[in-house]
């Protein structure tokens, strides 16, 4: 196991952060705007989100770099700045953490499907390598390959991330099938756990896709299929639209109420995805008596 992961786990379950996108919207990110570009245009507001999580008690915060890969950006004006957006993302989170939290940089999917021929394996490999090396050079403590639906793409991202020598977390979205226990591509938790572990991720898990209640079964199945520590970041329930904006209905206390059960099942890193906020992190911290 990577020494940093060992060190983090020595003190018990690690509290990660909550959502960034919804927090940036609350600070004026407009509909359809590319959030990661704010690292260059509105760094002070991105820093506010990062600081809010550190102050709430996150031991690991992520970065505003989820979509900052060349393929996702495509023809977008920001595409020329891919390395810069990633570097600034890490710098902003590091400055906010100020030694109180570790910075694990976010690497999201490209949004193109390998099997439909929209993108090649080489293009994916290059895009992830470019992003991972920019994140590592800027001083990230670890890399998080997250919100993946396609196992092949996840493996390519893990391989690129591992080249940096940083510890790599990899997690998938289980949002399909009648029990919401498959990824969009039909992958089961068992298949995911096995493949992500084989690909060399230090920590594996699940994020997004559904509320925390559904993560109990996911955690149990992931746990049974891998020896790696588990990383879990559920949504704050499912969104409901109010006046054209998404609202998530789970209350922080209700969400945090599930955390002891997840820890019992072997969750080593716990936080939240879409709709969770700094007060969710505070509620998790209270539940864990920190």
């Amino acid at each position, binding site marked *: 196991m990577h020494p940093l992961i060992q060190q983090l786990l020595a003190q018990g379950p690690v509290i990660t952060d909550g959502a960034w*996108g919804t927090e940036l*919207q609350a600070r004026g*990110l407009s*509909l*359809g*705007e590319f959030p990661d570009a704010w690292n260059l245009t509105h760094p002070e507001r991105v820093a506010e989100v990062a600081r809010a999580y550190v102050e709430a008690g996150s031991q690991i915060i992520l970065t505003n770099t989820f979509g900052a890969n060349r393929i*996702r950006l*495509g023809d*977008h004006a920001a595409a020329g700045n891919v390395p810069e957006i990633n570097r600034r993302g890490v710098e902003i989170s590091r400055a906010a953490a100020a030694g109180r939290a570790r910075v694990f940089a976010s690497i999201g999917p490209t*949004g*193109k*499907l390998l*099997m*439909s021929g*929209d993108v090649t394996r080489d293009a994916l490999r290059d895009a992830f390598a470019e992003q991972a090396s920019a994140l590592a050079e800027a001083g990230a403590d670890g890399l998080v390959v997250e919100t993946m639906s396609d196992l092949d793409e996840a493996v390519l991202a893990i391989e690129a991330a591992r080249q940096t020598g940083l510890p790599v977390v990899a997690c998938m979205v289980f*949002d*399909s*099938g*009648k029990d919401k226990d*498959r990824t*969009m*591509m*039909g992958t089961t938790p068992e298949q995911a756990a096995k493949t992500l572990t084989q690909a060399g991720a230090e920590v594996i898990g699940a994020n997004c896709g559904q509320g925390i209640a559904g993560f109990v079964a996911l955690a149990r199945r992931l746990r049974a299929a891998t020896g790696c520590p588990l990383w879990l970041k559920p949504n704050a329930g499912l*969104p*409901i*639209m109010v006046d*054209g*904006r*998404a609202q998530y209905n789970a209350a922080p206390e209700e969400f945090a109420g599930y955390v002891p059960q997840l820890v019992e099942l072997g969750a080593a890193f716990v936080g939240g995805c879409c709709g969770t906020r700094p007060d969710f992190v505070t509620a998790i911290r209270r539940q864990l008596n920190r």
Partner: protein
Amino acid sequence: MPDLKELYDAVVRGDAKTTQAITQQALAEGIDPLKLVNECMIPAMDEVGRRFECNEYFVPELLISARAMKGALELVRPILTARGDEPLGRVAIGTVKGDLHDIGKNLVASLLEGGGFEVIDLGVNVPPEKFIATITEKQANIVAMSALLTTTMPAMKTIIEGLKQAGVRDKVKVLIGGAPITQQYADEIGADGYSENAVGAVALAKKALAAG
């Protein structure tokens, strides 16, 4: 006479080579192309959809069956067009402005094609004017919009408003889909229909046109 059950099975298992080979053979022997489509391929895609609904099939299986279907349609369509057979409907499909996600949109587009529709794919980040222009220039009678993000879905409402202002709202059926979309949202913005998944979109498009 080629075995049409075999053609059906080939589409269901996503065997593009066999699908195309049998189609070619059937056409060479003078079988009515419309019969091939309506009695064999569309029922096969319905079966693929059924398997998806009961979680036997997932996105990869949908994709390979749709691809097999597409290969066969490329052989059939020129014949249908030459003799003046109209498609079931013309769909202008796109991911709304501000949104670059196209996995779901592409899947719906290929399933609609497989279901007998002509599909005009406008791509991603599609501004309202482009949807409107397609309705008038290409006589589309269905507008299908996709959004993956809660932040971009309000663009659907803007497009519907735009259709009204351009005076073409009653010329088309507006169908919407995407992870954050709900029936309630469709009702709220005055869309004609919503499908929870790509498979349902085909039945929805047929139903919307039948409703007149």
